[in-house]
């Protein structure tokens, strides 16, 4: 399926649901069906399928509409790193990565709404929290 990268100039990728692999595409007749971002070495996709809102990280999938799912998102302000995790009864994934604001001098993001706007996983966390997609 075709996914777009809203945090990377809206570039398009073709995402293989079975493998979690991507190929960059430059032109397509298809419209995008979700969003994608690569963080550290992980391929992270969000898309709708069969009435579910799927967060796929590499080959693992979670339905964000499932009430048994729990997400965490926060910053380590001293180390300028962000932390994201998702887990249900079967599986857990967590990642620590460079915060979106880490290269901005003299700045600490104290409005949490900024994370949804500036960080892909902050956006994912917000979508899960507000169920707004």
């Amino acid at each position: 399926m075709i996914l777009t990268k809203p945090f990377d100039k809206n570039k398009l990728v073709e995402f293989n649901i079975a493998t979690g692999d991507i190929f960059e595409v430059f032109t397509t007749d298809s419209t995008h069906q979700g969003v994608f971002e690569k963080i550290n070495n992980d391929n992270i996709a969000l898309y709708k399928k069969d009435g579910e809102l799927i967060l796929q990280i590499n080959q693992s999938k979670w339905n964000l509409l499932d009430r048994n799912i729990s997400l965490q998102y926060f910053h380590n302000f001293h180390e300028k790193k962000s932390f994201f995790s998702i887990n249900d009864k079967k599986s857990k994934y967590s990642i620590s990565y460079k915060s979106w604001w880490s290269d901005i001098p003299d700045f600490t993001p104290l409005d949490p709404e900024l994370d949804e706007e500036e960080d892909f996983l902050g956006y994912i966390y917000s979508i899960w929290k507000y169920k707004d997609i």
Partner: protein
Amino acid sequence: MLTFGKQNKKPHAEQKATNDYGQAKFEPAYVQKLQDPPKPPSNKNILAKKYVNMPDDLIADSKGVYGYLPKEESQFHSSKWPVDWTDKIQVGKARETRLKYHSELEKKKELVNTLRTQGISEDGIARKLVEARNTDRLSHYKTPESLDAVYNRNLEKYDNIYGPTYESQLAKYDNSPKKVIDASLRSNDSVDILTGIAKPKGGI
């Protein structure tokens, strides 16, 4: 690397943000006793009028300056968020930051109402809001160095010096202008409760 020092002379670059607790000037009026929280005149419409559902990540606790504390798993727990919610001075500073955000939010809500009255399409309104939010966000960066870093980041991420484009926001929100508008007008209830700007329905 591109630099945009000259653009720091733009009006938005001259605004002073208050979201750095380390540098922000302390105003004694903001640490009055809990029973009589400060109410700056310019924000009277915002204060104590917002009632929200109790967020899952908070608990009622009299040690909190406004009667609530984050649970340990909350992103706002003091082990993660740089505010001790039992400390009146720190919460006072957090409240100042929050009031500024809400002041900007109220302006955007007024903008939406005005544009709807004028018959502007949802698409047109959403586009205006994205621009307004970018302007607000840039006002948070206080130094030429931080603005240059943000401009460079924006170009790298969005191909737009000012921040996310309308098209990138549409991609995030299901290609729905209404959802872009809703996201632009969002406010985090947990922080609003912790800073005394909102109260849980039926709460203390």
